């Protein structure tokens, strides 16, 4: 249906990351993009957040690593990746040549590792921003997740900001009692935007085998099952911080994405949904565009956070 109304402006600025549209694909669910090229034009996606990168290669966890659960899945991939050098040499140039908006995702087991990773990415062509996975165990603090303590979050973000001029988005873990406290700490440390949420810790047991299904016992829950939790957290954080939010968790369709935007997200990320529908991100871009046209919305700014009471 063609409307008299001009085609809407889908572009958004996510804390300094200029995105042509508000839909990103989430880290660990889209590989390095190449895997999905047969199915979708990866350059048309708002931003491609690549698989989590560590300083050196990591083999990942033993199998089984994934299992389906009602309206979701658990994963314990264990951050398998070839290390930052291979990412920069073998994957990034390809994405850069294709004009893909790339957000790197880094993970460390100490603040020094985060700092070294950020420094390594500094000045590399083709990276629009850095997402900080802070759902990793801090080996110096007995394996406690970085993302569960506001002071630690502050330190990590502050340190990384000191190493890079790129926009930095800490990715908040939902496995905390007070997500707002964490978000505030990240903002105070100079985060340019927030990414939320990472997976919720869960598990599944095989009754037949009388043991946990995942070799790692616990895994991160993702998919539609977590959407209400993610949405609530975005809604809460939006009211308390001034920096933009990349919201996601269980987004499976355009309405889901709009819910996140109405809760206060500037842009959204699609994770598990990519496995179900490889073209989902672009279908959602189209859906948002159609919605804006139908409701005569010129820019998403007009509905961002509109549901907040």
């Amino acid at each position, binding site marked *: 249906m063609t409307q008299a109304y001009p085609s809407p402006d889908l572009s958004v600025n996510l804390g300094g990351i200029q995105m042509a549209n508000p839909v990103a694909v989430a880290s660990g669910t889209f*590989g390095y993009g190449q*895997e999905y090229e047969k199915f979708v034009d990866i350059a048309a996606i708002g931003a491609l957040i690549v698989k989590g990168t560590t300083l050196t290669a990591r083999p990942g966890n033993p*199998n089984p*690593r994934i299992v389906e659960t009602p309206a979701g899945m658990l994963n314990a*991939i264990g951050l398998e990746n070839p290390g930052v050098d291979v990412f920069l040499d073998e994957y990034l140039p390809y994405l850069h040549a294709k004009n893909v908006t790339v957000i790197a995702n880094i993970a460390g087991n100490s603040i020094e590792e985060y700092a070294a990773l950020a420094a390594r990415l500094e000045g590399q062509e083709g990276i629009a921003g850095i997402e900080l996975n802070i759902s990793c165990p801090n080996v110096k603090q007995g394996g406690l997740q970085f993302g569960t303590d506001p002071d630690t979050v502050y330190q990590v973000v502050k340190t990384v900001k000191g190493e890079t001029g790129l926009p930095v988005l800490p990715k908040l873990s939902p496995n905390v009692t007070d997500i707002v406290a964490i978000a505030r700490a990240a903002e105070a440390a100079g985060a340019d935007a927030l990414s939320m949420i990472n997976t919720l810790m869960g598990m599944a047991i095989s009754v037949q085998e009388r043991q946990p299904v995942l070799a790692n016992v616990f895994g991160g829950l993702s998919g539609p099952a977590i959407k209400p939790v993610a949405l609530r957290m975005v809604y809460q954080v939006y009211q308390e911080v001034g920096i933009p939010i990349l919201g996601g968790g269980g987004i499976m369709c355009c309405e889901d994405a709009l819910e996140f935007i109405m809760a206060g997200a500037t842009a959204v990320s699609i994770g598990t949904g990519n*496995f*179900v529908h490889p073209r989902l991100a672009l279908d959602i871009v189209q859906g948002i565009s159609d919605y804006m046209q139908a409701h005569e919305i010129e820019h998403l700014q007009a509905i961002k956070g509109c549901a907040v009471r």
Partner: protein
Amino acid sequence: MLEKGKIIRHNQVGTDLYEIELAAGAIVREAQPGQFIHLRVGDAYDPLLRRPLSIYDVDAEKGTMEILYRVVGKGTKLLTQLTAGEELDLMGPLGAGFSIAEGINKVCLIGGGVGIAPLVFLARRLRSKNVELCFLQGTRTRAQIVAEQRLQAWSVDHYIATQDGSCGYHGMVTDLLTDENIMQGVQFIYTCGPEPMMKAVQAWACQHHIQGELSLEEYMACGIGACLGCARKLHSQDEFYVKICKDGPVFGLHEVELYEGRTGS
């Protein structure tokens, strides 16, 4: 490739075993034996993920393909309810299939249970190249034997073993490997089925210095190498994991450490 495959035929062919014939011209054009499709059962959020199923047979002229599946859980149970005329959301063909070595005159295909699915398409391809083959099919009981007619139509030597003795040889299908009359002249062996069965095939092939290929399974999410979910170590002492969906599902018969129970890790 993403394709909506229209169901042309869907029928039960054995105990808990069903065949679906689908119109999926684009996938069929590219499909190689050993590759799989990743299909969505319905459009609800439970089951959420796609299900990987081997390409069981293709008809290149009609642009149709078939799958053979066994009902084991939520997704496959739901699949049985679909009827002709309905569409299935397909991704494929995915994975690295079987290689077809030149200069080989006789091969053995040995499958257990629903594991014969990729071997049937392979048999079609090999027969079209005039490769002589013996097809060993093992099931628990007579009511699980499938593909008899098509194998016959391609003049394949088809041998059956049932664990309860209700049809063919009474015992494990791998016992047939010791039958000189069947195995005479076999130069290459392909296998798919339960891991203990494939382990026995591997041991036999190792003893007889015969090369071959096998097909592995693992839980999958993306099906294309992006999520790193379907990982497995080829050998327990390896440091790194392969991805069954992308590096496989087909691997060299002697390349993989197999297990008596479920995948060790």
